[in-house]
């Protein structure tokens, strides 16, 4: 049983909830986007199976997550992955990094999109939760349990959150960097004496991880903004409509 009175336990709980809202919510958004052009009956089916797959994969992965992280070097790999996911979260969409370019207005296309997204994002989510759980299986199970309602109902919540409070995205990227940085130095391949050589070494690594993710994410985003300015989605309607037509 974890120590319910310790601050670090509750900090982990909060971190896990934040991760689930962002990564589980993003998974839900991808499913909703992939299905939105389908006829209604197919859309509901697509969303149902997409959500089912996302949750099933997460439950399946719990079992492996903690064991994998005990193997030397795998924490380092997981940590680097987390830093990269953090950057991806901060970086806004761009033209050349779209998946599935031919479009998925068919059921088959939507299914392909959803399977790939579910697989990749479940792994992301579980690694992040395992990193925040610090080896506690109860926390990992809790984290996955929290992600389930978010994957089912969270797409609107996450879209609204990102629209109203865009800083949430940056904070989420920083959190993933924080967890990744801490994970990096606790890999079993690294001798514990290294960590203890620097006072507050784990916190320092976490802080550096967060800083790295935010700096790289913001830097890449600003470079892209300079390259391509805003996108105007309505070039066809730029000729002023004659007023009065509605009267």
């Amino acid at each position: 049983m974890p120590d319910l009175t310790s601050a670090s336990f509750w900090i982990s709980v909060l971190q896990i909830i934040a991760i689930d809202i962002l990564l589980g919510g993003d998974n839900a958004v991808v499913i909703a986007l992939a299905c939105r052009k389908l006829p209604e009956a197919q859309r509901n089916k697509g969303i149902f199976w997409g959500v089912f797959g996302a949750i099933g994969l997460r439950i399946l992965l719990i079992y492996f997550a903690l064991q994998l992280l005990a193997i030397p070097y795998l924490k380092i790999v997981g940590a680097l992955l987390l830093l990269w996911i953090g950057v991806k979260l901060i970086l806004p969409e761009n033209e050349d990094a779209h998946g599935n370019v031919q479009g998925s207005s068919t059921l088959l296309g939507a299914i392909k999109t959803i399977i790939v997204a579910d697989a990749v994002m479940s792994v992301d989510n579980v690694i992040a939760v395992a990193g925040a759980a610090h080896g506690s299986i109860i926390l990992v199970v809790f984290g996955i349990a929290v992600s389930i309602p978010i994957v089912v109902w969270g797409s609107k919540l996450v879209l609204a959150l990102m629209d109203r409070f865009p800083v949430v995205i940056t904070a989420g990227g920083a959190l993933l960097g924080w967890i990744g940085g801490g994970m990096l130095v606790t890999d079993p391949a690294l001798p514990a004496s290294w960590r203890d050589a620097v006072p507050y070494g784990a916190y320092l690594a976490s802080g550096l991880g967060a800083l790295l993710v935010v700096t790289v994410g913001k830097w890449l985003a600003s470079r892209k903004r300079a390259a391509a300015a805003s996108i105007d989605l309505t070039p066809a309607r730029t000729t002023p409509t004659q007023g009065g037509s509605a009267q």
Partner: protein
Amino acid sequence: MKPWWLLAVDGSAAALRAVDHVVRESLASAVPLKILLVNVQHALPSDITRFVSSSIVQDYHRETGDANLASARARLETAGIAYSQHILIGEPAPTIVDFAREHGCTQIVMGARGLGTVSGLLLGSVTQRVVHLTDLPVVIVK
């Protein structure tokens, strides 16, 4: 110089008051105003868009933008005022400012506080940044 007004709208109550202001000014003005009705949406994180084709993402933005502009459009149309509609993707304040410059607008009109983050009590954060970034006159409607 012909007056080109950029009217930035996000579906909030203050934005609609800005629309009403433009309607009044436009009806009172001797020269016809050119109105560019603009809605800016944040880009989705690439964590999401890496899986989804750009046409679907743009469709999503277009529909959301259309919904955000609907009430403003209705008010302009009932008043019989000509306008053009633009749905943009990017960081709201710099996107509005760049768009106004690129299209040779002579003035930016917007609500004092929209749906953005709560960072100022009287002026919304997007409005504050637009005022800070642009060289154009900005009309802020409370």
